């Protein structure tokens, strides 16, 4: 939480979001969508949801982004939890990130 808060207050997250923005086009999403993914992963699930609702998106974009956020969020807090439980955290986080990107691309391709 300490790390997350300092990153947040120091303005690193908007910078990270801007860096990721162009990649969002591959998923049929506007650049601001990166902010949703970044806040859901580095702040909290609820922050991601609040950011998502603040954006003006089509149904398709909301569905793609919601699915991505639901598959991968709380990258720091939930990964720490899983590691504490005794699982290999790298596997858990790795599969979540890969699944998030693949599902985003798949939905962008499949959904009308």
């Amino acid at each position: 939480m300490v790390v997350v808060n300092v990153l947040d207050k120091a303005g690193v997250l908007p910078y990270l979001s801007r860096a990721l923005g162009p990649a969002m086009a591959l998923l049929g999403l506007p650049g601001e969508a990166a902010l949703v993914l970044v806040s859901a992963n580095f702040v909290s699930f609820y922050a991601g949801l609040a950011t998502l609702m603040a954006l003006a998106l089509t149904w398709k974009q909301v569905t793609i982004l919601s699915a991505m956020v639901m598959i991968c969020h709380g990258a720091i807090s939930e990964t720490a939890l899983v590691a504490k439980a005794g699982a290999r955290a790298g596997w858990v986080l790795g599969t979540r990130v890969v699944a998030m990107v693949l599902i985003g691309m798949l939905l962008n391709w499949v959904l009308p």
Partner: protein
Amino acid sequence: MVLEWIWDGFVSGVMKIVALWWLVPLFVAIQVLKDVGWLAKVARWMRPVLAPLRLPGDAGLPVVAGLAVGLTYGAGVILQVGEEGKLSRAELTVACVFLGICHAVIEETILFSAGGTNGLLLVLIRAVTGMIFAFGASRMLLKQT
């Protein structure tokens, strides 16, 4: 200013832990359910999910808990099961790969449905994705039993 950020982060970290108070009655409840014999029942219901992932019946309770209530809750239960030594590190990893992708299906789905999309579709996507990735992880991490 940096000190203030650190302090705020510290406070929110402490609050997060305080917010986990409900783990205590939870552990008591799990112990009671176990003694009453419900664990075996829950494990049987989860067999169709666990078998393809090469997970033993002991993984049933943490998977049910994680699916229904959330990863925090599920991890708490997994922690307990892990300490009892019933699941290996590899088995815990496979269970967590599934739960990482698909958990808290009630709370998170309701929240995101409020965001204006089809909740049922999202649950389906998560469940299928979780099974696929956990299946892959189980083939790589767990030997045929």
